[in-house]
């Protein structure tokens, strides 16, 4: 499988509402992929199905793991997904506000810790070394993202923009093959959004992972995504390169508005 993620005929409904309806698309390795669509189109729901927060009614989600094995995500539990190399951010930032930023990153590395509770309680050498390694890794990531001087700050005291970046940094702790991010630019102004675009590209280039992104800021989407899938009412509307999508009449009508409105 050349692609890192392959979604086939995914469907889920809530009561009578088909939130995702027979959706299929696939994401190639190291690609920045955009998922767009009107409000309530089912984008977040797709994310929740992939990461097993929701269990879809039907369909399959194939994923190529860190070890290049292709697995069916439907066979895994929520907390196991991250071990496979797939990690997400949330539409409303979900960081632990009372912990420092570096501690938040270390939580991102949770699945990589191997030492036992006993080893940790008695601070055995193994546990100490492991902790040291993880801290180094976290510091490196923060450095890469230009956040190193914030490492010891309490997350809750930081502005929203920083938190968005921290959440991104946290995903990197698990050596992901695919990061999925939900509305990263929400709440950022245009200058900040541009910085974010650079950051996203940099993450892909430095960490060699694919990125799947939901975003309403068309500037960001069109500038960073290599391929885009537009959905409406849970169904695929169009798929293609940014230019193709921009020109697509259906997409314009349902989502973008006339072409000249698009930044």
């Amino acid at each position, binding site marked *: 499988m050349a692609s890192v993620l392959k979604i086939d005929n995914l469907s889920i409904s809530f009561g009578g509402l088909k939130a995702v309806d027979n959706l299929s698309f696939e994401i190639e390795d190291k690609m920045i992929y955009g998922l767009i669509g009107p409000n309530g189109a089912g984008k*977040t729901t797709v994310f929740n199905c992939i990461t097993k927060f929701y269990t879809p009614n039907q369909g399959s989600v194939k994923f190529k793991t860190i070890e290049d094995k292709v697995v069916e995500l439907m066979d895994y539990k929520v907390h196991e997904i991250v071990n496979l190399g797939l990690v997400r951010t*949330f539409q409303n930032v979900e960081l632990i506000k009372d912990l420092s930023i570096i501690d938040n990153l270390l939580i991102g590395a949770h699945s990589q810790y191997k030492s036992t509770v006993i080893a940790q309680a008695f601070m055995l050498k193994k546990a100490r070394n492991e902790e040291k390694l993880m801290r180094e890794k976290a510091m490196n990531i923060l450095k890469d993202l230009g956040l190193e001087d914030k490492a010891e700050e309490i997350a809750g005291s930081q502005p929203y923009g920083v938190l968005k970046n921290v959440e991104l940094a946290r995903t990197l702790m698990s050596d992901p093959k695919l990061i999925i991010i939900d509305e990263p630019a929400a709440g950022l102004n245009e200058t900040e959004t541009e910085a974010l675009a650079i950051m996203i590209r940099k993450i892909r280039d430095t960490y060699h992972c694919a990125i799947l992104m939901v975003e309403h800021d068309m500037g960001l989407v069109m500038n960073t995504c290599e391929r885009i899938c537009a959905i409406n009412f849970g169904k695929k509307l169009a798929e293609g390169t940014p230019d193709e999508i921009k020109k697509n009449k259906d997409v314009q009508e349902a989502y973008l508005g006339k072409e000249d409105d698009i930044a």
Partner: protein
Amino acid sequence: MTLFFQNIVGGMQSASMYGLAALGLVLIYKTTGVINFAQGELGMFHAFVAAALLAAGVPVGLAVLVTLLIAGAVGFLIEWGIMRHAIKIDALGKMIMTMGLVMVAQGLAPMLFGNNPLYFPKLLGGDPIMILGISILPNTLLIITITLTIMGILFYILQKTRWGLAIRVTAENVNTARLMGIPTQKVSLVIWMMGTVLGALAAIMVAPLTTVNVSMMADIHLKSFISAVLGGFATFYGPVVGAFIIGMLNNIIGFYISSKWATAILYFFILIVLVLKPTGLFGKKFIKKV
């Protein structure tokens, strides 16, 4: 079969009181997120008030009325004097504060009313009515009626009225509720008053079954809490149904299996129910969307 129903009917009387106390508990919980540990002991305190009034020659009906007014005032004081100023304190902290209130009520009662148990009569006298060979006291019917009526009223207020909406909204997010122009302080004031009055009413009805004494409400309070959990905190009928299940089951187990092990068996049963229905019989689990 007569014996079976006699046991059921006997249990209904206590069950109504668990239910009534549970309604007060759930009401306060729903609005403020606080489990009021003092619900029972405040009731006990008010039963002393009623009994003292009676002993001082006040007629029963008036004594009850005055006591309920005093209970309302006490509820007012608790909200206005304590809970209102505890905005920064989370529900758990407030819960411990109500544990402090337990000590205050338990300590003050004997200081004010003496160390002897006191007498308070049934609200409704009269000989048992026989229905199909089962005897029911008129008072039992009264208590059951009061409980179900109050449950109905609360349900109506909460679901159908503007103030009910205010209560639910306050429960969910005080700050936003205020932003929307809802006088949340008034809401929680009224709720604490109502909750305390319900507790007092329950205690006044318990009094004739035992005596007015400091520990009269301990078991009722615990059972009311358990009823609320068994029925789920989500609705007002849940806790009352829970209370009836507990009251009746207690007697059925006691009669047909073993009175010694009745309590243990009952708790074991509740444990099982909860494992199968983690939010109680009528509970709803709200899933936060991510």
